[in-house]
């Protein structure tokens, strides 16, 4: 199997953009190629793997061809990969596989989502289409509801509290203050987050990520090509992916995401690293309880101890054991659905190359991205390292 490295990474700021989807994607690709140390042009890549839910349906079909053309890659084999919020996490896995298998030498992997140009009614419709439509949706559930069900059950089984979730919200907002690309750059006090408007009991506004516009892209290369392009490649050491029952009620447990555990197990085994080796972790905190569960499912703490992990500040940048969502995470950096997984890789790329500026994690050697689709029906986990050893 061919070793694979990230040699370039870039993204747009996340937020509410005046730019169209195609323009955001082109911006992200330009930013990505500008970060490559050597010379490489978009038109010379072998393949494009694009994650997007095509939110709003504006270009639901042939999205990848449309966007490749707008980013200087007309004619390059391109496809859209859709796994809800995990779309570009799976695009990353497919791009990695294309190179690891020897089929390609250089690929572009990325994602894009335009979410804030819809009426509230259309946005509400599109925010629900990735859940289980036949049973969950007709029982009144959208994703705030499914994650609220998980949160209440975790509190019942493990004694976690809403205050534990508030700690996660406050931490991620604090981290985002140092991220110029973050959607929500504002200091949020514990008191404010603890008293937010209830969205889906027990979750409040401050437990929920925003709906963001944004795009992100990375360039992956085979080891031989990577070494020609840069002296500081970020190696993809492990890739894992899994799926689970779409509907929450079909799963044996509401307090763990089996897809995360399976994907993480694969990625750790392939990489040779363990959870205790991680310096930088970007987890899928679409809701604060999702981060709580991720810290358990990724092995950063024991099962049932996610609340304690959050309460003790163990994910705080340069303070805790492992920096969790040093970018601000989905909660504060933002969540442009199809771009989120690629955006996580962009953050790890910068952190492992020491290019994260004021949010730099000290001595960052090993990183992980964790990208979840919906309420856990799909998950992609990737482990990255500064070295191949």
């Amino acid at each position, binding site marked *: 199997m061919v070793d694979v490295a990230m040699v370039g990474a870039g993204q747009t700021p996340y937020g509410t953009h005046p730019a169209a989807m195609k323009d955001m994607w082109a911006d992200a690709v330009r930013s990505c190629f500008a970060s490559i140390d050597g010379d490489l042009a978009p038109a010379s890549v072998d393949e494009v793997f694009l994650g997007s839910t095509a939110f709003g349906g504006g270009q639901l079909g042939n999205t990848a061809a449309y966007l490749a053309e707008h980013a200087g890659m007309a004619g390059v084999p391109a496809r859209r990969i859709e796994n809800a919020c995990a779309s570009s996490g799976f695009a990353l896995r497919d791009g990695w596989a294309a190179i690891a298998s020897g089929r390609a030498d250089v690929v572009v992997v990325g994602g894009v989502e335009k979410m804030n140009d819809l009426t509230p009614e259309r946005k509400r*419709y599109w925010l629900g*289409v990735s859940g289980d*439509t036949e049973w*969950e949706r*007709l029982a009144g559930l*959208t994703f705030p509801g499914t994650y609220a*069900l998980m949160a209440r059950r975790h509190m019942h089984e493990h004694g976690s509290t809403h205050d534990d979730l508030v700690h996660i919200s406050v931490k991620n907002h604090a981290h985002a203050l140092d991220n110029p690309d973050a959607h929500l750059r504002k200091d949020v006090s514990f008191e404010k987050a603890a008293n937010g408007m209830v969205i889906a009991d027990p*979750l409040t506004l401050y437990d929920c990520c925003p709906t963001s516009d944004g795009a992100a892209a990375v360039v992956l290369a085979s080891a031989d090509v990577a070494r020609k392009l840069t002296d500081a490649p970020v190696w993809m050491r492990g890739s894992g992916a899994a799926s689970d029952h779409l509907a929450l009620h079909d799963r044996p447990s*509401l307090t763990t995401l089996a897809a995360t555990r399976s994907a993480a197990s694969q990625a750790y085994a392939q990489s040779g690293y363990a959870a205790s080796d991680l310096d930088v972790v970007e987890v899928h905190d679409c809701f604060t309880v999702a981060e709580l569960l991720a810290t358990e499912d990724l092995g950063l703490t024991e099962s049932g101890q996610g609340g304690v992990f959050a309460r003790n500040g163990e994910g705080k940048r340069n303070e805790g054991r492992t920096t969790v969502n040093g970018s601000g995470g989905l909660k504060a950096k933002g969540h442009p659905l199809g771009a989120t997984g690629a955006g996580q890789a962009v953050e790890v790329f910068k952190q492992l190359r020491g290019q994260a500026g004021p949010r730099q994690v000290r001595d960052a050697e090993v990183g992980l991205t964790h990208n979840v689709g919906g309420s856990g029906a799909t998950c992609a986990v990737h482990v990255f390292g500064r070295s191949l050893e």
Partner: protein
Amino acid sequence: MILNEMMAGNALISIEEAVVVASAFHVGDRRVHAPDADDLTILIDALEAWRHHGHEGPVEVDLHESERSLFAASLPWLTVKEGADHVAHRFQCGAAVTARESGLDVDAVSVPSDLRISVDADAHAAINTAWSTEMGTANVSQGAYVSGQVHDLGLKARLGMLAQAGPIWPPRGSMADGGEPQHGACLSMAARVVSWTRLIAAGCPSEFAIRAPILGGLTSMILSFEEGPSGVFLYADGHPNDVNIDDEVLLIVRRVYAQDGVLRYGRKAIRL
């Protein structure tokens, strides 16, 4: 006659050869349907109460054509037959199942004042208006949704709680070994709360966008059945005053939502 219990938001009268249910909801002295109920659901309530009280046998039921598939899926145990020993009657916001020769005047049934649930006239009118708007042909889906065909194909599982062997509910299309799923039994209508949430109106799916603001959001629950499977269900006819994990609930047939001019029904939960 002995008025012996409340059931599913109804006053329930049980006598030897008859079961009568009447909506407990009232605007002043006028009996009205519960927010999610209608003539069909109260008829189903009456027949389920009839069975619950130990009655069985073929029943004669006068049904509208549009009700037949919903009725059959909701009551898979029932034999409907012309000239049967029992007859299902409908009256204003109520229904009764009587022995053919009982002579019971079901239209004379009224709910004693101490068992009535009083509802605000404006709120009741708002819900009725919302249902009318929702059922209008202008209320169409914006795209991917549960089509009428998909809904109808799932009726036996949705209303009758029919599972496949295992038991697995709702039924799947194929087994892990590639084999065809085998039909199993229907799940019991009683279940236990595993988790619950109450969503504000803005957090509800677009299918509920018209009624959710009037209801103040929706209450959803994950329920576990004693046979093993779990499911997710709305709470019926508003919000529970109090709900806790491990509470026991009963599943009853109610309206869920309307779209594209078609009313969809399903099971909803109510506390025992």
